[in-house]
């Protein structure tokens, strides 16, 4: 009787020990599943994320609106914004412009962004939008440059979806206007701000 009780006790202790040890395992921490951006030696490029199969279109991604998705019609940049021009669009454009474009082109579009200032060896400095050439370009041109890059500028298509590219293109127009706005078109408040800033700092004309 005494012996069975002792055996039972030993069994309980042993079970508890094994169970608490089993708690140390980590196979649920690192499950054999594929997670975004993880490494994978099954594929030659070592990536889990797979590129699209060539010439395939994911459901919902059919891009049949040429003007909207390429910024061009018959290989010519469109002059008309293919989305409604609203205040929200311009605000979205401003936000996205400041995120993706301002490092090189500067917050006012003068090509004097931080990278332009730092990149002493830049073979070709970022463009200012305030040249006659770019002021005369149709809005689709800016969409095309964001999509496909230009000169040493890389494509931003993977980071900026089409809707946002149009918002940015529209905002580039805002920046262009901002540098050539006529004083008699300003609201009294803006005019006052302008006068204050020009008297405070002897800024450039």
């Amino acid at each position, binding site marked *: 009787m005494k012996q069975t009780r002792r055996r039972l006790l030993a069994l309980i202790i042993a079970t508890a020990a094994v169970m608490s040890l089993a708690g140390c395992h980590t196979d649920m921490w690192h499950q054999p599943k594929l997670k975004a951006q993880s490494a994978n030696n099954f594929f030659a490029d070592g990536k889990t994320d797979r590129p699209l199969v060539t010439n395939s279109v994911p459901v919902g991604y059919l891009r049949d609106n040429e003007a909207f998705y390429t910024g061009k019609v018959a290989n010519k940049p469109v002059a008309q914004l293919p989305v409604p021009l609203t205040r929200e669009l311009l605000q979205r454009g401003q936000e996205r412009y400041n*995120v993706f474009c301002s490092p090189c082109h500067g917050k006012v579009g003068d090509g004097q962004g931080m990278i332009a200032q730092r990149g002493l060896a830049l073979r070709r400095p970022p463009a200012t939008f305030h040249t006659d050439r770019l002021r005369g370009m149709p809005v689709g041109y800016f969409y095309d440059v964001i999509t496909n890059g230009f000169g040493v500028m890389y494509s931003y298509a993977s*980071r900026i979806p089409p809707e946002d590219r149009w918002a940015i293109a529209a905002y580039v127009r805002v920046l262009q206007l901002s540098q050539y706005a006529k004083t008699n078109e300003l609201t009294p408040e803006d005019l006052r701000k302008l006068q204050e800033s020009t008297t405070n700092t002897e800024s450039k004309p």
Partner: protein
Amino acid sequence: MPQVFHRSSNTLARLSIVTGAALLVSSVLIGSNLSRSPYVTQVGAPVDQPVPFSHKHHVKELGIDCRYCHSTVETSAVASVPPTHTCMSCHSQVWTNSPLLEPVRQSYLNGTPIQWNKVYDLPDFVYFNHSIHVQKGIGCNTCHGPIHEMNITYKAQPLSMSWCLDCHRQPEKYIRPKEEVFNYNYQPPANQMELGKKLVQEYHVKKEQLTNCSICHR
């Protein structure tokens, strides 16, 4: 019959009981404190990377927005470590001869990704989603700490379940206006709790859901 044990055995026996109990208590205390210590959680320990990327330089000194590189953070579960293409959109022109950037150039030429080491590595049974946190007013710094001051990136928070729950129980302690999410200079106002409660309502944060097991474990 002579006595088997000497009188001093009494003291020894009492002492061993006390020591045994103390050992038990202290081992539990040491264990629980150790598991929360930076030694185990790795908080503050810089993680070696194939390229010594500095967030401080890119974010604070150059003023590049988080989303320039982590471009899916607002729309996807993963903020995404940028592809080499993103690095090269500047470094094809800037620091083109730097030996530190050789792995970046090689990666771009060969099409093989740079194997960055994960700093914020959650267990696989936790389903974290960046976009919902960013969309509901949780700032980058709330979890990633002073990332704009880090030369080599380190973990700023323990990522323990109690740490997650601290905010999931009382999001008003940390929530901030949406437009301040990416602002690393943001300081919570003195009336954070007041503002927080307002924002929780305004952003439709369903507090009662946030402590459901299946919010994070699926």
